């Protein structure tokens, strides 16, 4: 297994469990530890069944094993509140953090848009923004790389079953994080994110609508080509990422209608929103892992400030 980078998963909920499947399939990653806080949790039991070592002592239960087990990358799927501590402790041991919480301590990462830059800079903590961000920012970037976008607005429709209590209780954080990422990563001057939670049964597959207002009349041919190329990039790690309608042009408004169907690893296929987060996180880890294995980058211990 010397040709794989060993990983820890923090948070034994849906996201953490789904990540095990994705990382186990990876040619460059190996899931070794699962960290939880409840010894009786289903997630930890499942992780053990899948061959991972587990601790119910939170991140502190992992720290003594980081060196001996050669952990180099950790995924944090806990909450914004505990992420900062988790990150500080693991960075101090030279472990790179992939943050799936809204904490956003590190730079925001959307793989087809800016992962390369983060890997080149050997960032020790990158944030995966939000499911809606992962689904829509590639399209905003695809338009803004053709011509300036004054305003980007996205609407994410999510099935009720796929939204956990944490997101529900903190919906404003989702809105703020995603809105700012439309600008910071998507390249729009102003951004706004809307979320709708739909309880229909059978559950609806995640849908996203991306609106961009361009400064000048949109260059239809170039935008069409750019959007289609970007969708093909996302499909490399989320095969169920599909264009449903558009790009539609109405004055300076460009509208793209998307659907995100998950792989159905642990989470059901309709929960494309969760799948695109875990897939983007795994994709990010793979890029870092490949560079480490090729000797191109080296992770550094981050001294506590």
């Amino acid at each position: 297994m010397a040709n794989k980078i060993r990983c820890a998963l923090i948070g034994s909920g849906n996201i953490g469990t789904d990540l095990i499947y994705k990382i186990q399939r990876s040619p460059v990653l190996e899931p070794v530890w699962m960290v939880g806080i409840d010894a009786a949790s289903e997630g930890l039991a499942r992780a053990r069944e899948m061959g991972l070592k587990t601790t119910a002592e939170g991140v502190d239960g992992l720290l003594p094993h980081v060196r001996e087990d050669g952990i180099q990358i950790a995924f944090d799927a806990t909450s914004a509140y505990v992420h900062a501590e988790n990150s500080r402790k693991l960075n101090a041991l030279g472990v790179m953090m992939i943050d799936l919480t809204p904490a956003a301590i590190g730079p925001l990462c959307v793989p087809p848009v800016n992962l390369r830059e983060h890997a080149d800079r050997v960032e020790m903590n990158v944030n995966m923004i939000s499911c809606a961000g992962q689904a829509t920012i590639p399209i905003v970037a695809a338009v803004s790389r053709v011509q300036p976008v004054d305003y980007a607005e996205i609407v994410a429709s999510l099935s009720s079953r796929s939204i956990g209590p944490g997101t529900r209780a903190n919906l404003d954080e989702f809105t703020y994080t995603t809105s700012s990422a439309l600008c910071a990563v998507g390249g729009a001057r102003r951004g706004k994110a809307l979320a709708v939670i739909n309880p229909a049964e059978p559950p609806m597959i995640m849908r996203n609508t991306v609106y961009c207002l361009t400064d000048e009349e949109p260059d239809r041919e170039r935008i069409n080509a750019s959007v289609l190329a970007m969708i093909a990039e996302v499909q490399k790690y989320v095969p169920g990422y599909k264009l449903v309608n558009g790009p539609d042009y109405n004055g300076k408004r460009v509208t793209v209608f998307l659907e995100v169907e998950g792989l159905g690893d642990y989470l059901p296929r309709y929960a494309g929103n969760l799948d695109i987060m875990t897939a983007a996180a795994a994709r990010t880890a793979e890029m870092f892992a490949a560079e480490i294995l090729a000797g191109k980058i080296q992770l550094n211990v981050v001294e506590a400030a």
Partner: protein
Amino acid sequence: MSPYVAPVSLQGRKVLLHDMCLRDGMHAKREQISVAQMVKVATALDDAGVPMIQVTHGAGLGGNSLQHGFALHSNEEYIRAVAAQLKRATLSVLLIPGLGTMRELQSAFDSGARAVTVATHCTEADTAPQHIAYARKLGMDTIGFLMMAHLNDPAGIARQGKLMESYGATTIYMTDSAGYMLPDDVRARVAALREVLDPATEIGFHGHHNLGMGIANSLAAIEEGASRIDGSAAGLGAGAGNTPLEVFAAVCERMGIQTGIDVFKLMDVAEDLVVPMMDHVVRVDRESLTLGYAGVYSTFLLHARRASERFGVPARDILVELGRRKMIGGQEDMIQDTAMTMARERGIDVSRAA
């Protein structure tokens, strides 16, 4: 002709009427009511004794968007201008979590709003705890609002209402966003709410007139214990409009329900100020009736008409399909999406749509 006799005497009951024509009515005006018009109508409603008046963008705080349209002015501009002129009435706003945020609520409060309707889909009350708690912290009259209530059964509505109460809402509304409910549907849900809520928690009903049931449904709600009713002068609101408030106020007076409203003055506001503002006659017509018949969110009406003009699929067909696909409030983007998909299936070239 024998006079109407209510099964329960409502004589002497006090009911708070909450006007929606300057918020829900914005939907029917494509968000194009000016500050001057709002001030004029609100002042007249205040003078007629309407105790609570909702203003701003049709989708409420955060509503200005490509998804929901841009109003002529910012929400703060509307709130400040109207609040400055109200003598008695409380100014209220709407906040839908996922669209509006606590920052916007603070800003609305700073501009003069003193009541807020925090609205979620009827099964998703747990997306509102932050906003409801924040409104209470600001000291606002805090209303929990369960939209599309026909999509949840009475026990479910009771559970969701109880959740909103637990976050701090002091009034729980059952909202017939699709104008689909019949009086027995309303009765069962209000009764279920009344059974579980604290006796001090008020119950409200917000109707749409798509099946012409606004008045009857509001009365049914009061019979089961509701003490707040939403309506709008001349019915100006989404779909076939809201319960026409001047009509409801007149009915209340006939039945001995106390609203504190001067019915003639309210009639004058409706006739002289609101009706002349209408871009189209807000009434039960083929499409708004379709909303009520198929159980579709009332705000979808004008969006479906626009999509119909652009993509050549009849608005009624689009609305029925949206109902079949179980689309809910906030999914206005899915109207164009659905129209485009339907047009393609019918062999219409959507890439040429102007």
